[in-house]
């Protein structure tokens, strides 16, 4: 197996800018472009907390598709796989400011954190108050549980995005929104798997070994390598293995209610996703855990990676309420609320 290097683009160096133009044009009732950033077509009401995220591109619909009512106010898209720089993030913070403070959500990756910190330093230097950041992580493969803060961010963070977005829309304070971010983070776990790799659209560089078709578990969201599993493992077995690892890590007792996310990292077919989902539901049932909400589809992609991630979020009444609140994003939809 090998990878696709021929892409349907114009000049690859302009791909991110042209993507933003096209995507926003296709969804103009929800989002628009402002100074290179994706912002809500209809800004949030005055006095509410603005929610911002900066991230590398190549993960679409993350996060350009999650800007809108009940979600992010501003998304600052960086170059492919690279967090935007502090200058751009600072502009994003300013654009999201509706007078109620701004919460910068940061997926834990060296570049994202460093650039966010620098941006917040600059915001302080400019005399802005009420800018907070929360660093988020969920990927159980990236560090052991006793070093949980060293873990990196993965697809499970969509639970944070959704619930913090809902809290901010409802009018929660900056402090309350930050507390929800931390609470959801602490109740969420993810783990990814993939076969093969992808090529960077600008450098043309394949990530890792393009001829390696072994299934890896625990890849990063940029195709950073993971641990290898055998060649021919059945979907049910992969799902059980991954779900067990997540549930163990989260210490989920029988009777727990969870949100189950099955993320398509790019080119998995819905056939494969559905078969994996079926396996995950069986694995949860075996542990007496109930999937009360489900998401299945492309949330955070890694270009056209043939992979996926499972995430579980341990729900409670507060989180379910936030999860169920309406939201509108070009790449977000609230269908299939309850899997029952």
């Amino acid at each position, binding site marked *: 197996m090998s990878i696709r290097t021929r892409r349907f683009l114009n000049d690859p160096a302009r791909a991110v800018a042209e993507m933003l133009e096209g995507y926003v044009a296709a969804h103009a009732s929800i989002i628009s472009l402002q100074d290179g950033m994706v912002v809500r077509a209809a800004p949030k009401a005055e006095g509410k907390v603005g929610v911002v995220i*900066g991230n*590398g591109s190549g993960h679409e619909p993350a996060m350009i598709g999650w800007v809108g009512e009940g979600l992010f106010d501003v998304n600052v898209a*960086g*170059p*492919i*796989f*690279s*967090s*935007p*720089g*502090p*200058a*751009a993030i600072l502009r994003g913070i300013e654009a999201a400011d509706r007078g109620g403070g701004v919460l910068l959500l940061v997926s834990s*990756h*060296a*570049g994202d954190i*460093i*650039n966010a*910190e*620098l941006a917040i330093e600059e915001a302080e230097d400019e005399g802005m108050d009420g800018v907070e950041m929360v660093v988020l992580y969920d990927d159980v*493969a*990236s*560090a052991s549980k006793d070093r949980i803060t060293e873990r*990196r961010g993965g697809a499970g963070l969509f639970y944070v995005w959704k619930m913090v977005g809902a809290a901010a829309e409802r009018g929660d304070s900056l402090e309350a929104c930050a507390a929800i971010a931390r609470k959801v983070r602490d109740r969420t776990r993810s783990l990814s798997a993939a076969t093969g790799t992808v090529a*960077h659209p*600008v*450098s043309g*560089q*394949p*990530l*890792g070994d393009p001829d390696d078709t072994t299934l890896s578990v*625990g890849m*990063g969201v*940029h*195709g*950073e*390598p*993971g641990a290898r599993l055998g060649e021919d493992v059945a979907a049910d077995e992969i799902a059980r293995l991954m779900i067990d690892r997540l549930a163990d890590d989260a210490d989920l007792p029988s009777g727990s209610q969870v949100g189950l996310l099955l993320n398509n990292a790019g080119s998995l077919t819905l056939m494969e996703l559905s078969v994996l989902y079926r396996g995950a539901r069986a694995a949860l049932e075996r542990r007496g855990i109930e999937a009360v909400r489900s998401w299945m589809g492309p949330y955070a992609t890694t270009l056209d990676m043939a992979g996926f991630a499972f995430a579980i979020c341990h729900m409670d009444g507060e989180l379910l309420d936030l999860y169920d609140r309406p939201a509108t994003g070009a790449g977000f939809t609230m269908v299939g609320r309850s899997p029952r």
Partner: protein
Amino acid sequence: MIDRDLAARLVVAAHRRVRDHREELSRLDSVAGDGDHGVNMATALAEAARRAEQGDHSTPADVMRAAGSAFHETVGGAAGALFGSFFGALAGQLSRSEEPDARQLVAGLEKGLARVARVGKSEPGHKTMIDALAPAVRAARESLDRGDDLEFVMATAARAARRGARATAAMRPSAGRARFAPDHSLGTEDPGANTVALVLESWAEQLSSEVRV
């Protein structure tokens, strides 16, 4: 003496060198990272060189500050932030004198190193750009203290940076993306450390060619 024009030539030289090694830097980053380091660095330095060549800066500190901003404004990523901070700290030190000399430059490199370590929360041995930058700065300081001139100081620093970059091959990463797959990068040098070596080498060569002329 480092004047405005020499500072600009240094930035341009750094851009040329990194651009010519772009593919190699991305390839190093692809082994355990996300394969974009060469693209990131070449993009930022292209903008830094453009600003340096526009020449509406009045001091060498301005040139370096503009280079730092170019990193922060064009690319992001871990190395974008860190190199941007490095140039910013260097500029801060250079701005303390009208016509900075080797002494200011070495002090500036030290400030840059300190800023990178603070912002990146990383230490020598973590398999990062620090592992090229720290020995280079130390070597530059020793050379300066021995009374060497600017050209010689920089040549010494560049050699130490290159040795430092080479030594990263044997390290297991504990910072940056690569740390999540520590075994994958064993035997491969750190991309950011390589960029440090390339930049300092380009500066050493630029200074030696200036002396010769």
